[in-house]
């Protein structure tokens, strides 16, 4: 393998290859991977595959698909990977192929462009000029040297790079402009791989997590080995009542020491040691409330004796009734795990909210301690045996949680580098076009037809561009006019 690729460099010696040698295979491979047809195919097939992912919702729960499309269809979706199409092996392969394709194109073509920036293109014959797409023949009065000089000067003014060769019978000029347009195209070709590489690094070494955090709490961020304290969360409203922004004030703590504090909101994350904290959502907490309002009723008469607002986990004494109550727990969607004998919230929705009271009752008639659950929707569900009272939960104010997205993506800088390359590259190639002009200035034969003492020459002038024919034609015409009226 090693020896073979060395032989490549010395291509001057033809290898007596029996059958198909490495060189042929390599040439075929390059031919295939550098082909524009493959590029077009990839562009379009990626577009088609991407379309599937926009029509079919991605990463939904199974029942969502089954409800909409039926079980058979869903089985096919799974088999084809359509429920997460952008992470299937075939989509990834298409992207990889596009990278290989554009890299090969770069490898095949860029060296030529690079060389042409430094190379002599002035040794051309007259038939070459006459065969160009745009070509004219202009008789001009003047000497060979004088006319050449005039043309060179004009072209230089127009920003062309000019090479000239003066030979006894003729002068040849080569002028070029806008090579950056082609360099730009190849910059775009490299960028595809840069961007994909950045994305790959991100998905291999990055992470993305979601944290539900409550005001006043401190959370450890294991991947960053520091702590995050939620100082405050609040919502701003527009005049018409719609939400304007939601915000959290966060403090980073390292070993208990405050490092930095920032108020984040949507569009304005906190970045600390490469980890980004986004304000992503907010909602009502499902296991904490700030206040709950309670009616205390007489069990027999069903009359409201007193209404109190209970603070979270603070003991309240109702001396008149001989009661002390504490709001000790809350669940938004009551569930009971009978094996563990534990109450929990079945969901984050406030479907079946309930509070737990810790109460002590000492009156003339009764003395007891109890920890009843009081249901918002079912006030009469449980009776407290031996008590004179019944409790009714009439309302509560849930604690808000702030939803933080916590992300690290070490590939993102590379993606931005690739993005810059693609935008600069395509822009260069769109707005700068490569033009090449050739001139031969040939003295007219002195057969006596010209006036005495005045020499004349014929300028053969031709040019090409790889695109933007209209503007090039215009420029070509202007140049032709200019040469005709050259005053030397």
């Amino acid at each position, binding site marked *: 393998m090693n020896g073979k690729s060395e032989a490549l460099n010395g291509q001057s010696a033809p290898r007596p290859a029996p059958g198909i040698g490495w060189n042929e295979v390599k040439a075929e491979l390059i031919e295939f991977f550098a082909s524009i047809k493959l590029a077009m195919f990839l562009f379009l097939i990626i577009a088609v595959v991407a379309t599937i992912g926009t029509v079919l919702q991605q990463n939904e729960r199974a029942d969502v698909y089954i409800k909409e499309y039926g079980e058979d269809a869903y089985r096919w979706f799974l088999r084809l990977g359509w429920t997460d199409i952008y992470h299937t092996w075939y989509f990834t392969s298409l992207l990889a192929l596009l990278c290989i394709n554009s890299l090969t194109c770069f490898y095949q073509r860029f060296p030529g462009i690079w060389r042409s920036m430094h190379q002599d293109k002035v040794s051309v014959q007259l038939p070459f000029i006459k065969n160009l797409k745009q070509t004219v023949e202009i008789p001009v009065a003047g000497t060979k040297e004088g006319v050449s000089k005039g043309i060179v000067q004009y072209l230089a003014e127009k920003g062309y790079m000019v090479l000239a060769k003066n030979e006894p019978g003729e002068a040849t000029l080569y002028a070029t402009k806008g090579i950056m347009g082609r360099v730009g195209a190849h910059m775009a070709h490299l960028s595809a791989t840069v961007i994909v590489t950045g994305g790959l690094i991100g998905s291999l070494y990055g992470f993305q997590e979601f944290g539900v955090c409550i005001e006043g709490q401190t959370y450890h961020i294991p991947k960053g080995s520091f702590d995050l304290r939620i100082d405050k969360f609040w919502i701003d409203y527009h005049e018409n009542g719609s939400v304007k922004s939601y915000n959290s004030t966060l403090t980073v703590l390292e070993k208990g020491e405050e490092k930095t504090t920032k108020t984040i909101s949507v569009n304005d*994350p906190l970045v600390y040691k490469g980890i980004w904290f986004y304000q992503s959502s907010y909602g009502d907490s499902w296991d904490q409330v700030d206040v709950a309002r309670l009616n205390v009723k007489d069990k027999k008469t069903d009359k409201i004796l007193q209404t109190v607002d209970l603070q979270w986990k603070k003991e309240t004494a109702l001396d008149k009734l001989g009661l002390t109550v504490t709001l000790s727990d809350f669940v938004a969607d009551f569930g009971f795990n009978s094996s563990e004998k534990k109450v929990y919230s079945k969901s984050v929705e406030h479907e079946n909210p309930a509070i737990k009271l810790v109460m002590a009752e000492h009156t003339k008639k009764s003395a007891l301690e109890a920890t009843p659950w009081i249901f918002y929707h079912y006030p009469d569900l449980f009776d407290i045996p031996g008590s004179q009272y019944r409790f009714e939960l009439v309302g509560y104010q849930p604690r808000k949680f702030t939803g933080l997205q916590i992300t690290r993506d070490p590939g993102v800088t590379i993606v931005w580098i690739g993005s810059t390359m693609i935008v600069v590259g395509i822009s260069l190639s769109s707005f700068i076009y490569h033009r090449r002009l050739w001139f031969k200035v040939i003295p007219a034969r002195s057969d006596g037809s010209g006036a005495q003492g005045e020499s004349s020459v014929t300028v053969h002038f031709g040019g090409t561009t790889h695109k933007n024919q209209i503007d090039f034609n215009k420029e070509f015409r202007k140049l032709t006019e200019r040469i005709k009226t050259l005053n030397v």
Partner: protein
Amino acid sequence: MLRSLFLFDMTFWLYLAAFALYVAYVFARKPAMQMAVAGHPAESSSFTTESDQGWAVQIGQVATIITVFGWMMNTAALFTRAMERMQHSGTFAPWSNQFEAMSYVSWAIILGYVLLEFRYRIKTIGAFVVGIGFIAMGAASLLPYRYQTAEPLVPALNSYWIYIHVSVTLTSYAAFAMAGGLGLMYLVRERAERKGQSSQLLAVLPDLETIDELGYKAIMVGFPMLAFGIILGAMWANYAWGGYWSWDPKETWSLIVWLIYGAYIHARMTRGWEGRRAAIYAVFGFLMVIFCFWGVNFLLSGLHAYA
């Protein structure tokens, strides 16, 4: 209620008038002058000299004036809307919902057309491109009223990124609209050529090569701009959604559109992809742009769907 709505209305009527005048202009031109051009695209000097007589000159001039006037009205409408937004919600961008975005696209299409007319002096293009600008404006005004007002932005949109990301993307749509219009024009002229010399259209439209080249140029303006717009969107998403790319339908669709035009510019380098095929492709590409702009907002769900 909103002053800008009145101005948008005026813009609509002016564009309608301009469009009608351009169509009239096409039919008022004298055929004779242009016969030679059709067969000889190489002598392309002829496309810059539209020689008109009689009515045609005046109609053409009035069409241009009305177009420019309509564009100024459009500018005023967008500006007024920006001020209204400023008052209501403290943001400025007059392209924050579907209606405003459509109006902005019309604005960009017409601006592009006016620049093209001043540079290349081909008025007949107006019959196609001003037509698209007018249709965009018309479609905007057909939106239900609640889409037309200046409601405050939801928090995710409330950012300075909206100024640059949205305007760049929409401007690229306008360039693709221009290319689509030119593609249509190419096909119309090509059909006329196949039918024979007698057609009036044959005589008044610029030659095929010119139309083809201009269409290509429009795409070459739109292509880098869309790339830039998508990347600005990715940067915004990196601040707002916590990731630069999340395969949300809208961003995926703009990538799809970009890939479609990527295939186009590479196709042009292979043989046989100029002229008719390229024109059909440009029209197809524009239909995809329309879907990306309208269809996605109304048919597919996703993070972008706030219209």
